[in-house]
């Protein structure tokens, strides 16, 4: 079994994702170039990494969504394969409809590159190795991370317990100051109803070992490893 890391022109967190996925287990990790038209059969989890695919032209993720590999990624997810989109990956997943909603410009209009604190909902396969309600420190780096969805969709996310991460203060409280980008319901990450697709704006792969200053993001990859082992 192995991980597949999708690489678009403009991806820039692909190596971080590759490194983090690879050091945790004996799983192989392979890059999958966006022009590929198939996913290797031993791939059990696909990571769509952060970056600026196709220069963010038109809208973030709008062009990447039509790359030839994306049809296969969509099929992979529809068959129940685990799929995680981080930052630009999350934007791509909303553009192709695998996750609901969209990511708007940050409310402040600033590109934000800093640590955030997230409250974890550990009921998903992507977060099972955290404790319920754990507060973790994970960095964000985005200009368009302001999660938007209409009221019905937001209610559905809440009713179905699909909000995996919310922005909070260091003490785990939601406040106007803890939401960095204006996201509805302070949403930092969501899963689909089937539970096999996660999109999140913060970068767990950037805080995956103490050498990087923090390892709070490792739990996401440990959870995936448990699910696919």
């Amino acid at each position, binding site marked *: 079994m192995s991980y597949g890391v999708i690489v678009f022109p403009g991806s820039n967190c692909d190596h971080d994702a590759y490194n983090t996925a690879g050091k945790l287990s004996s799983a192989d990790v392979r890059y999958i170039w966006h022009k590929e038209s198939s996913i290797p059969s031993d791939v059990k989890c696909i990571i769509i990494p952060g970056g600026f695919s196709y220069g963010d032209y*038109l809208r973030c993720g709008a062009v990447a969504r039509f790359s030839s590999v994306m049809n296969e990624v969509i099929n992979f997810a529809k068959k129940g394969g685990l799929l995680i989109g981080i930052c630009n990956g999350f934007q791509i997943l*909303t553009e192709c409809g695998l996750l*609901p909603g*969209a990511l*708007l410009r940050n*409310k402040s*209009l600033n590109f934000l590159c800093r640590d955030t604190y997230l409250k974890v909902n550990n009921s998903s396969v992507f977060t099972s190795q955290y404790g319920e309600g754990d507060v973790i420190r994970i960095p964000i780096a985005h200009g368009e991370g302001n999660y*938007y969805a209409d009221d019905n969709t937001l209610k559905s996310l809440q009713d179905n317990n699909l909000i995996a991460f919310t922005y909070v203060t260091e003490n785990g409280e939601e406040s106007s100051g803890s939401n960095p980008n204006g996201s509805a319901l302070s949403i930092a990450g969501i899963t689909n109803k089937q539970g096999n697709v996660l999109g999140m704006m913060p970068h767990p792969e950037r805080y995956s070992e103490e050498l990087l200053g923090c390892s709070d993001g490792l739990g996401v990859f440990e959870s995936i490893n448990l699910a696919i082992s």
Partner: protein
Amino acid sequence: MKKYKAEIKITLRENILDVQGKTIEHALFQLDYDMMGNVRIGKYITLDIEAQNDGQAEELVKDACQKLLSNTVIEDFSFTLE
């Protein structure tokens, strides 16, 4: 086949806060244009298209707007053909 030119405008939906528009609105106020308001920023796209008739051209542009050029979750589009 006839040749057409499409002019497409894409804006954020009315119920979505347009933070760029708000920022420009504040800048206009500072220049004493306080009679102006409700600034919305959007995208303007032109493209050439070959189609058999007006109806087909319109269908093709509409399709492209829904599939790629706009994100209908957050944006509205309108276009003219000539």
